[in-house]
């Protein structure tokens, strides 16, 4: 059964390769391939979760024992992420049928496969490959929206992310030169002796900056506003919601397993604080919805980086809570932006045109700023208690910045909400006020329902997250799981 876990990773690739051929013969059949594969992937992963197979376990690809071959490491966290990838891939599926359907859907399948790979893989270079695949598929999907601005933003994103991958590759080369292995578990074993030095730190930092491009780490996140403003909403939703979190996952794994140096954490803390400051402040003045969401996303990820900088397990819990919360919210908000994407001023009175959308927006906003019964509050509560418990004054600065940023966030989100519920401008008839498309609205409502469900069942959700965090924070468990069959690395 557990061998099948490789299918959600491979089948989308398979589908992507075959899609152009099938589409050539029959578009109607071809259009079903992607959703079917993703639904199957969801089913396999869900089944895996339900069947209660002992997690975590490790799966050697090609039957080669881990340090030599590549292994997939499946713990609750990876499984959750993989499931989220497949599900969101399904929800954000580009259904539009036109001349380029085959290519667009193939790219989407590739994106899903690569994201699943990022969630599951246990090898540093393999992660790099999937990271690049995510990048290329992303570029294609962003550019697919076809506007000139989309091309321009794509090339800027591409170049930035290209430098990022060069730096990542450099970091990988440094690590390999030092240790002679790239398996994360193996590295985790060797790290205390071999990577606990300047070289290890440099390698981590180059990887951090490289991967940070996708994770919207300040200051390599300047691509985000323009890309989110030009790409199709579904793509933006997938990027802001999921891909950034997967990049975070890489950093999280590296931190937990390999790099325990306090300097590594401090760098992230400082960059995270700067990210929060710049993102939230820039969002304050944003004049169109998408860019506002993009800046807010930068701020939110800054918060997650601050959380990531907390060394204890509680910090990890905060990271996970914030991550999944933001995943849900930002995806939903970007779905709303499909149709509401234009200038904020144009949305005057939009609540009358589409009350459901406005209500969902308010719900998301409330959760985003941490209104108590909603899950966002618990995520933020976990974060601030952890932050306050740290002794270094830098964390207190982080706490202060975090709190102030929340105020600013509330101000701009509710400025928009007030606009939505306010009267329409005199010269605009109500029919001309933009309105989210039906499908997007339905998807957004789905996220809203998910959010409410999480709020309702916050106790089990919280327990689940604590369990997941506990598993993810346990480096020894990781090592032992990966090397269980071989009884050691040597």
């Amino acid at each position, binding site marked *: 059964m557990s*061998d099948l876990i*490789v299918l959600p990773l*491979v089948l989308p*690739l*398979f589908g*992507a*390769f*075959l*899609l*152009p*051929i099938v589409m*050539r013969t029959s578009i109607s059949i071809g259009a079903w391939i992607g959703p079917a594969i993703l639904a199957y992937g969801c089913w396999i992963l869900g089944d895996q979760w339900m069947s209660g197979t002992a997690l975590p376990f490790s*799966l*050697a*690809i*090609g*039957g*080669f024992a881990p*340090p*030599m*071959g*590549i292994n997939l490491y499946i713990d609750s966290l990876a499984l959750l992420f993989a499931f989220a990838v497949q599900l969101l891939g399904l929800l954000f599926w580009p259904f539009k049928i036109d*001349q*380029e359907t085959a*290519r*667009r859907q*193939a*790219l989407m399948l*590739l994106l899903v*496969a*690569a994201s699943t*790979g990022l969630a599951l893989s246990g090898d540093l*270079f*393999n992660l790099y*490959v*999937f990271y*690049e*695949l995510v990048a*290329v*598929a992303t*570029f*294609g*999907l962003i*550019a*697919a929206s076809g506007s000139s601005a989309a*091309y321009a933003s794509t090339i800027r994103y591409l170049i930035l992310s290209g430098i990022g991958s060069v730096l990542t590759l*450099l970091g990988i080369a*440094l690590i390999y*030169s*030092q*240790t*002679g*292995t*790239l*398996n994360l578990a*193996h590295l985790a074993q060797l790290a205390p002796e071999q990577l606990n030095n*300047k*070289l290890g730190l*440099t390698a981590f930092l180059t990887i951090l900056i490289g991967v940070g491009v996708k994770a919207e780490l300040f200051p390599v996140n300047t691509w985000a506003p323009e890309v989110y403003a030009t790409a199709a909403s579904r793509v933006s939703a997938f990027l802001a919601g999921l891909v950034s979190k997967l990049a975070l996952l890489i950093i999280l794994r590296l931190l937990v397993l390999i790099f325990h140096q306090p300097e590594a954490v401090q760098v992230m803390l400082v960059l995270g604080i700067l990210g929060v400051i710049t993102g939230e402040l820039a969002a304050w003045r944003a004049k169109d919805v998408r860019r506002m969401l993009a800046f807010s996303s930068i701020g939110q990820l800054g918060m997650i980086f601050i959380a990531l900088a907390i060394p204890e397990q509680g910090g990890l819990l905060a990271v996970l809570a914030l991550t999944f919360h933001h995943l849900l919210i930002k995806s939903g908000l970007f779905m709303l932006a499909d149709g509401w994407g234009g200038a904020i001023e144009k949305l005057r009175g939009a609540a009358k045109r589409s009350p459901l959308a406005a209500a969902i927006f308010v719900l998301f906003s409330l959760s985003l700023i941490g209104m108590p019964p909603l899950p966002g509050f618990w995520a933020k509560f976990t974060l601030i208690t952890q932050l306050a418990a740290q002794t270094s004054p830098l964390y207190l600065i982080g706490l202060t910045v975090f709190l102030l940023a929340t105020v600013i966030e509330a101000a701009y989100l509710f400025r928009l909400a007030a606009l939505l519920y306010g009267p329409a401008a005199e010269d605009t008839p109500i029919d001309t006020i933009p309105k989210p498309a039906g499908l997007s609205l339905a998807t957004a409502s789905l996220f809203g329902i998910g959010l409410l469900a999480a709020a309702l069942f916050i106790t089990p959700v919280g327990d689940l997250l604590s369990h997941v965090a506990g598993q993810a924070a346990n480096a020894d468990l990781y090592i032992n799981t990966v090397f269980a069959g071989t009884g050691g*690395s040597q």
Partner: protein
Amino acid sequence: MRNLTSLLFAGGLGFMLLAIASGLDFGAPPMLVGGAIQSTAPQETGATNIVTSVVLGYRGIDTLGELSILFAAAAAAGLVLGRRHTTAGTLTEGGFVLKHGGAMLFPLLMTIGFYIIFHGHLTPGGGFQGGVILAAAFFLPLLARPGARLHHGMLSVIEGFAGSSFILIGLAALSEGEAFLQPMLVQDTLGQLVSAGTLPLLYLAVGLKVGAELAGLLSHLAQTESEV
């Protein structure tokens, strides 16, 4: 001012990295994984070219990912450049040498390409290198005769089947109860052409896919548009 700063920054970064890198023990790599692979690879995969056994065996999924990246890049480039309104227009007609040389080179390049692919597990070279040569073979006529059109349909069919057969070979191992992409049919005839089990098949798939992909990409780039 900014130019100067950037230059200084880049130089400084390089210098610091150099300082870091000079701490490495150059020329004596730890060979933890590499050493282990060297000693077991010939038995496990049956390939004498150990790089090949790493590329297709130990790190097979990397290669799959890499193929996907190439595919994604080609698909994305296709999406960006589009198919409409393209004719191979402004290329000037190739001269006599180019035309006939191209015609003569085509079979030669094909042979070389396939040779490299099939000997990938024995000698340097393999699917990628061979694939590039195949692509060149397909592309050359286009350069020589601007009017000629590459058969895009054909290419994409080759590409799709090559890619999916890579995965199918991997899945076949899975259905045999082994791990995904586990090498099968390894004979004990190290050094022979038919020795490495499924590896040459995988490399063939890689080569065909790379060749088709790149040829398609090149022809996309070579076409000029009438809509400009």
